[in-house]
């Protein structure tokens, strides 16, 4: 495997920050940030060994483009679960 645990840990910890920012932006009806974050997660989830995060990224980006708050919220919840499980496995 070419992804070290330290990189994975850093990656998941940064998603916790993403989750906070996503929640904040949604409370302010800001759809730009979910689009940016969604696009980024779409591109890097699989690379770090988290294909589900890439799926969430796609959903987030599409939800942001459609300004679909519900879809974004569902994606945030799912992201919280995946990050939690990932961190448990690493510790």
């Amino acid at each position, binding site marked *: 495997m*070419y*992804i*070290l645990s330290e*990189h994975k840990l*850093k*990656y998941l910890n*940064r998603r916790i920050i993403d989750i906070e920012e996503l929640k904040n932006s949604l409370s302010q009806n800001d759809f730009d940030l979910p689009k940016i974050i969604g*696009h*980024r997660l*779409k*591109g*890097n*989830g*699989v*690379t*770090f060994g988290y*294909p589900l995060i*890439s799926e969430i990224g796609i959903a987030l980006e599409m939800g942001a483009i459609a300004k679909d708050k519900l879809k974004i919220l569902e994606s945030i919840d799912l992201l919280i679960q995946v990050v939690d499980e990932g961190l448990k496995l690493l510790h």
Partner: protein
Amino acid sequence: MKTKSLISLVIIDDDIDLLELLSSYFRQRGYEVNSYEDARIALSEIESKNVLADVVICDLKLPVMSGLDFIKRIRQFNSVLPVILMTAEGSLELAVESIEAGAYDFVLKPLHVPQLLISVQRAVFLNHVQNENTNLKSLFSDQDFLGLKGVIGKSAGFKKAMELAKRVSGSQANIIIFGESGSGKEVVAKAVHDLGDKKAGPFVAINCSAIPENLLESELFGYAKGAFTGAFGSKIGLFEEANKGTLFLDEIGDLALPLQAKLLRVLQERKIKRIGENQTRDITARVICATHKDLKKEVENGNFREDLYFRLNVIPINMPPLRERKEDILPLSEFFLKKFNLINNVNILGFTKAAMKKLEALTWKGNVRELENAIERAVVLANSEYIDIDDIPGPESSSEESKVSLKNGIPPLFSINNIMSLEDVGKKYIEFIFKKNGYAKEQTAKELCIDRKTLYRKLKELEHGEQPLH
């Protein structure tokens, strides 16, 4: 063999996770990585040559300057640097647009990093080949003279010789080139060939002093089957091989008298006969001769035919020795540096000022050939990016006489003007080593590989013969 220590990689992505991951991945594999979140900063660093990139990996979708804009800008000053674009937007149209803009490869996100590594390795190879190609082209185009490739020199003596070569290239008059060994006589002959109407034909060169007389005759004239023992088939000679071109006879002054007569006949009649044949054959090759000898003196001494001398000496061209055209030393050195950088796959950037001064100060008895050998040696042995004074052979190799001397007043051991007997050479050598070692007997005996008793005896003999040694 020295090579560039690390392959330099520039990675541009606003995704800090990927940026860190890729940087770490490539550093672990021996790459030098410079990473940027902003393509404009990367562009500025590459353009100002603060970063010497071999390959760039760039994300397509970046906030300020996109990957496509980055490529377009970089192509304005660097047409060969491979750029690999990464994108999460996978469409064929975008891939085509990227390649058209000058991208080397187009990689889809999510990244499979080992696949990206393969793309980088291929791009590094491409970059290496392109650089090598550029260097080769520049080697032969930087310093052209009279539009001739690899003809280097700017001294008055060199220019005079080459201008004369140009003027006579269109004529059919016989040309003889005079010059010391290694001074570039063949370069002049080649220039006459390349600038004249025979340039489409072959340029055939032979050193008359390098081949025994009987072999040289068959080389020049060819032979028929059965002409002599071992002539199992017929062979065309160099006069015929150079048909419609130029035959360059170097060191003609060393040609044996019988062959001189045959050469004279060929030059007069423009016909040859292969050895063992009666049939004559017309020759159309232009014959250019060269020598390091003073042919006039050779004629006076009876070593060279006077009629051949007059036949050849229609247009004499003198190529001065390198010590008389100092201005050529540095351009030639630069040329040889590029040449041997390529051959040895190293990247020596140039010469230090001290090294340049030394190059110009040496007498280069072996002329351009000696200079070329010295630069080759320096390129191979240099320890830094610049050839320094110590990398260039000392003055003893280029001095007027080959001699061994010490600074403390010991006379030269070998001198052309003072031929010693073998016994005297032995004595002088012991004296030389003894003085060099500060009169330490043990060290001297050790260095001379003789026991101390023998040394004492030898020293006593020396003291009896001459003044005491200490």
